[in-house]
């Protein structure tokens, strides 16, 4: 990959997390994005990561999942489907 994609990941928030933070998505430098857990703390999001699910590229992932340039990282508050 080249250009901006090679230097960043995209971070997305949903539902209550999005509203508490006041934004839904942003780019984040890959050189700081060592793991979803690291990004969570850098972004200083409200709440506890223990109650949040992590997704990388549309699949659930662990909080220490290695991140690559161009990845889409999402923090998902507790699910309430059906």
């Amino acid at each position, binding site marked *: 990959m080249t250009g901006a994609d090679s230097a960043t990941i995209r971070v997305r928030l949903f*539902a*209550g997390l999005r509203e508490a933070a006041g934004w839904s998505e942003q780019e984040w430098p890959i050189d700081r994005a060592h793991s979803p857990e690291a990004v969570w703390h850098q972004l200083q999001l409200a709440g506890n990561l223990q109650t949040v*699910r992590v*997704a990388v590229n549309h699949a659930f992932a662990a909080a220490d999942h290695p991140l690559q340039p161009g990845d889409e990282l999402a923090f998902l*508050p507790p699910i*309430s489907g*059906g």
Partner: protein
Amino acid sequence: MQHPPRLQIELLAEPFEPLRRLEQWQQQCRHANPTASAAEAFFIGRVRGQAGDGHPLSALELEHYPGMTERQLERLGSACGQRHGVHHGLVLHRIGRVLPGEAIVLVAIAADRRGPAQRCCQELLEALKHEAPFWKREWRADGSAQWITGNTPW
């Protein structure tokens, strides 16, 4: 050796009539194989009239994660269907604003026998409630709103 089930999965931004959609799906199942599925199990979920705290509910808002929600429903349906050896599966789920009394979810399973059909239907419903990225916000009659964290009692 179980073959993957044929799955039909849709997110719907507008109200749907579950019985009409079921009939269309049954016709498709019969068209694929007129005698294969002697057992069918269905679940239709509707929005109740009260919020979790008992106050009158004016609407439920359904948020999802476009791309991941569809993919996750496919994964869950495929895994559950193969585990139980079912033939066909249908999952319809509303998104957006859903009113009390409207159908919010429909799960239908066709299989050779009642056990696999009923177990798969129940398991897939529980799986999508906990493992597919949907979030509900309750809008109360007084105009206040609250995100729901977690699911209603079984």
